[in-house]
């Protein structure tokens, strides 16, 4: 079989036109998902069952179903309800991009909240006791002790989830969105050269992943500055 290098060179710029959409999906759902995750985390650790249980149920549903199915349900399913079409959310949910962002946000929020909870549970109890002994309130302890330490502890797993989210954005191409994967599929349909096109697409995702890894590496070193003796 032949491998057409010039086809790759021709199609790369076309696919790169989808970077904007891919990045938008990643950044917007990554950001909103993080906010959702913090809200779910606070519900989980509130110690109040009427906050904890709904959060647990939510996390179970969104971790228990494929993200592709979630995208389909939101994109194909929700518009069937008149209440949805009449609601203030309709101007988001009528657009495929809006649907993809909603699905990715809801999904990543469930995962990230559990990652953050792991970080919170990893904070040494003795530090919180020291805070109590100094008279710090529960809120002070959470803000000044738990949050900074849990953030550092959560970061490796969190960066994993962000990289995973980058790849999940490719699923948006299944609901007509022209992200990098969506454009690649269109080119394949025109050229019948899936091998070259998808390999170059894969390489683009790998380059993005490398960038994310480096970025998180920098953040990790910054947040971990107090864990090294040589300071």
């Amino acid at each position, binding site marked *: 079989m032949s491998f057409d290098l010039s086809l790759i060179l021709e199609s790369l710029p076309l696919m790169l036109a989808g970077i904007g959409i891919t990045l938008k999906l990643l950044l917007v759902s990554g950001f909103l998902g993080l906010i959702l995750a913090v809200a779910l985390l606070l519900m989980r650790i509130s110690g109040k069952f009427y906050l904890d249980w709904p959060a647990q149920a939510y996390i179970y549903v969104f971790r228990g179903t494929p993200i592709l199915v979630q995208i389909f349900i939101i994109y194909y399913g929700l518009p069937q309800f008149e209440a949805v079409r009449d609601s203030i959310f309709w101007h988001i949910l009528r657009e495929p991009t809006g649907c993809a962002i909603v699905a990715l946000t809801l999904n990543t929020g469930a995962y990230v909240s559990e990652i953050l909870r792991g970080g919170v549970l990893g904070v*040494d109890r*003795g*530090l919180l*006791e*020291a*805070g*109590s*002994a*100094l*008279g*710090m*309130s529960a809120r*002070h302890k959470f803000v*000044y*002790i738990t949050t*900074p*330490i849990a953030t*550092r502890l959560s970061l490796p797993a969190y960066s994993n989830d962000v990289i995973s989210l980058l790849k999940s954005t490719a699923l948006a191409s299944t609901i007509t969105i022209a992200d990098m994967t969506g454009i690649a599929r269109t080119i394949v349909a025109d050229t019948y050269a899936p091998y070259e096109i998808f390999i170059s697409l894969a390489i683009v995702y790998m380059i993005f992943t490398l960038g994310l890894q480096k970025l998180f590496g920098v953040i990790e070193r910054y947040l971990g*500055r*107090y*864990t*090294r*003796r040589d*300071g």
Partner: protein
Amino acid sequence: MDSMTDTETRPLIKMIKVNKFFGPFQALKNIDLEVYKGEKIVICGPSGSGKSTLIRCINRLEEHNDGNIIIDGIELTDKVEDIDAVRREVGMVFQSFNLFPHMTIAKNLMIAQQLVRKTPKAKAREIAMLYLERVKIPEQADKYPIQLSGGQQQRVAIARALCMRPEIILFDEPTSALDPEMINEVLDVMIDLARDGMTMVCVTHEMGFARSVADRVIFMDAGEIVEQAEPAEFFDNPENERTKVFLNQILSH
């Protein structure tokens, strides 16, 4: 012991028939204890005898199940304001130092001053440096805890407690996690505090410290106060059989 009642009329710490359970296990049994201003108390006893639990009840890190604990006239109940008020009076030094690892030494000493005492930042730093001088490590102010030795970290922890200007300091095995060569630098700070008249309750196995500093040594076993006496009496002439066995074990080598 009522030999100290003449120093003050009201005890700073008063525990009346305090019981504490962990599930079915009774960690404290009918503890009666009075500590007066300026007194230095050493609590010793075998592992699991309830010594740490006892002092952790004094600042409500553990909740007692019944009996009364009254700190400087404030009874410890579920009321958050009372707990806060007591914790403002009572400092604590832990076996594992428990410095905040993500804050510099100075910040460790400033954070509670700023949040709890509402001390302005510059003033808090000034107080922090004052107590770092006192524990003889002002030059470490801008380092992180991990960069200090264990002995230095524990001295910082003592300075952190002092910054809150407590009436009482509780020491929960302050030298047990230290390498032998660092124990004395921490004990020296504690002796210095004792000379200054600080009210101290120390859980420790440092019998030399107990003998030279304590006004009273308390021996606990199985959740009870078995014996308490002035150090000379306690070490040279223990009354209870369990005390004798314990002292033999720790002083025999």
